[in-house]
């Protein structure tokens, strides 16, 4: 993941800045060498912590390795991917892909909209603002496992406070099994994820909002431009680049979603994500080769989504 996210910010190759003052000039060459020297340690670290595990996983995915006996693995080529029993022919896998994409799409959209709303509220000068700004971060600061457990208890069908509240308010006539009911499990997971990550979005968007020059708003005020128009024509376009980056960060997270689902609804196939599927194959079924293949596919799907996103963004920026 480190690879994809770092390419967002450091898109230009090292030394690109020096290119304008002549390929062949010695000062340009020195600069380029310096640039490489400076990024070299980072490249080495990346190779060690991201490149090596990825390469190993790729290697395992081409074998029939078992967790119990890794040494006696055999090379099987692409059988784990496209063989009779390969990942790509497993409907369970495609179910997980569908779940994950749906989860990422809906949760990131909801978080963006809600985060924008919260950020706009927090951006209004008020004495409460500092306090609220700290308070809003609480869901984000709690470890996911803890908040997932907390929500599991709150949503418990017999002892949960939420069922109790809904029952006493007369909104439902029997307790709902939020995490067990296949129809409710997916929305429940979504809800908790949105609760947890909206603050992150809100803070990033708030930072973007504060970068919008205040005098633009005053100019619009003197000119009598209606507020909604100012929002859609001035605020939104100016914060959009930051929102896009925040969205892709969140999308990367959402496509790898694991802990929340593992804690809350680990048995439900309605909420099985790609990461859950990979873990199940590797640990529960001990199929390291097969699991590695699905892990590689997971990375490829994420890379594909990010690639599409960046291309879309670039086209959008150039179209303007």
């Amino acid at each position: 993941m480190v690879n994809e996210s770092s390419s967002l910010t450091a898109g230009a190759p090292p030394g690109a800045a020096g290119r304008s003052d002549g390929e062949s000039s010695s000062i340009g060459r020195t600069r380029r060498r310096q640039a490489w020297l400076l990024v070299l340690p980072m490249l080495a670290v990346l190779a060690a912590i991201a490149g090596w595990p990825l390469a190993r996983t790729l290697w395992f995915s081409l074998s029939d390795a078992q967790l119990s006996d890794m040494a006696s693995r055999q090379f099987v080529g692409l059988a784990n991917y496209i063989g009779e029993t390969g990942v790509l022919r497993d409907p369970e896998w495609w179910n997980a892909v569908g779940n994950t994409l749906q989860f990422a799409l809906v949760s990131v959209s909801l978080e963006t909209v809600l985060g924008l709303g919260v950020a706009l509220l927090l951006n209004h000068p008020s004495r409460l603002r500092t306090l609220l700004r700290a308070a809003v971060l609480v869901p984000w600061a709690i470890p996911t496992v803890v908040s997932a457990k907390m929500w599991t208890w709150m949503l418990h069908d017999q002892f949960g406070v939420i069922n109790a509240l809904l029952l006493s308010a007369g909104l439902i006539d029997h307790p709902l099994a939020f995490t067990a009911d296949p129809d409710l499990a997916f929305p429940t997971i979504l809800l908790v994820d949105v609760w947890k990550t909206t603050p992150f979005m809100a803070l990033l968007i708030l930072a973007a909002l504060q970068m919008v020059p205040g005098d633009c708003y005053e100019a619009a005020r003197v000119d009598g431009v209606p507020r909604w128009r100012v929002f859609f024509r001035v605020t939104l376009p100016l914060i959009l680049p930051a929102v896009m980056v925040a969205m892709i960060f969140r999308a990367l997270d959402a496509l790898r979603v694991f802990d929340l689902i593992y804690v809350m609804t680990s048995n439900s196939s309605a909420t099985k994500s790609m990461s859950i599927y990979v873990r199940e194959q590797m640990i529960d079924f001990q199929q390291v080769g097969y699991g590695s293949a699905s892990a590689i596919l997971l990375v490829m799907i994420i890379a594909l989504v990010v690639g599409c996103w960046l291309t879309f963004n670039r086209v959008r920026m150039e179209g303007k």
Partner: protein
Amino acid sequence: MCQIQLTQLQKRFGATPVLADVNLTVEEGEFCVFIGPSGCGKSTLLRIIAGLDDASAGDIVIGGRRVNDVAPARRDVAMVFQSYALYPHMTVYENMAFGLRHLKLPAAEIEQRVRRAAESLHLTALLDRKPGALSGGQRQRVAIGRAIVRKPKVFLFDEPLSNLDASLRVKTRVEIARLHRELNNTSMIYVTHDQVEAMTLADKIVLLRPLEGKSGVASVAQVGSPLELYHHPANQFVAGFIGSPAMNFLPGVVASAETARVTVRAGDALLSAAVDAAGLAAGGAVTLGVRPEHVVAGQGELVGRVVHIEHLGEHSFLYLDTALSPQPLVVKTAQGDVPLGSRMPFSLPAESLHLFHADGAAARRLRVPADAACVPA
């Protein structure tokens, strides 16, 4: 019809008074300049007129209508901000059109207004650029264009030239003067801290002074035409602010006060000033003032030692150590080849002298040098 009237206007930020007792009328079509040292509340006053800030007390009347509680958009004013406040993501065209789009004007009308403004400001070739790709002067013209297309009754400028280099400043100053002539009947209020801009552009100058937390001081030091402020400063603050280099001040004691001639002992010299003697009596402490350009150098009964010279080509400024005041006396002279340390005779004509009472108020001058046939208001 579009007169602006401010009565007893006060502004405080928290407990700190920033503007006090502002009473002011800007006539329709008038070019009014607010000038004063940095931090004296010029921008604040402009923003109060625009409606971006609220006055703490007092009335704002535009075109006969009290607008204290009227939204900025309904005051029929357009403002050019010091920072230009252009929308960074819009083209020059969109920047100018944006303030019109919600007015439900026909598209052709918007197009025509923008094109016409662009033409008069030489922006036509830049209409598709974004502000980031413009120079400071071009951005500034876009900001003015954005105000013009709205056809307001009142233009408000907040130090529009302060971010430009010297030559562009002169050019744009001329452009703004031309703009004001073309848009007759449009009042302009123009904030600056540059007295050359104020003197060259203004029909009326409003000189503001900082309150510095004091109470009982009015913000407006003087209102008048440029020449009135130059020749008949109402008080020592105005006298010291207008004119560059600043007026020389000589502390003294009244020796005799006759109706049209006050004699003051400054240092070991007796100087007479052609000012109204009302309120003066022998023995009272006063301050005499004389502008560097009104000291007659090269002849006279007074004498000073040249301690510093500034050559400006056309003329020079001599700094003379004299017995009149502790600070050197600044003298403007056409002769530049004066050796340092030499003795320079000079005289201070009675009609060139200003006299300020102990509280800073100026005594009325009865005669002014021949170059100024200007009658006090």
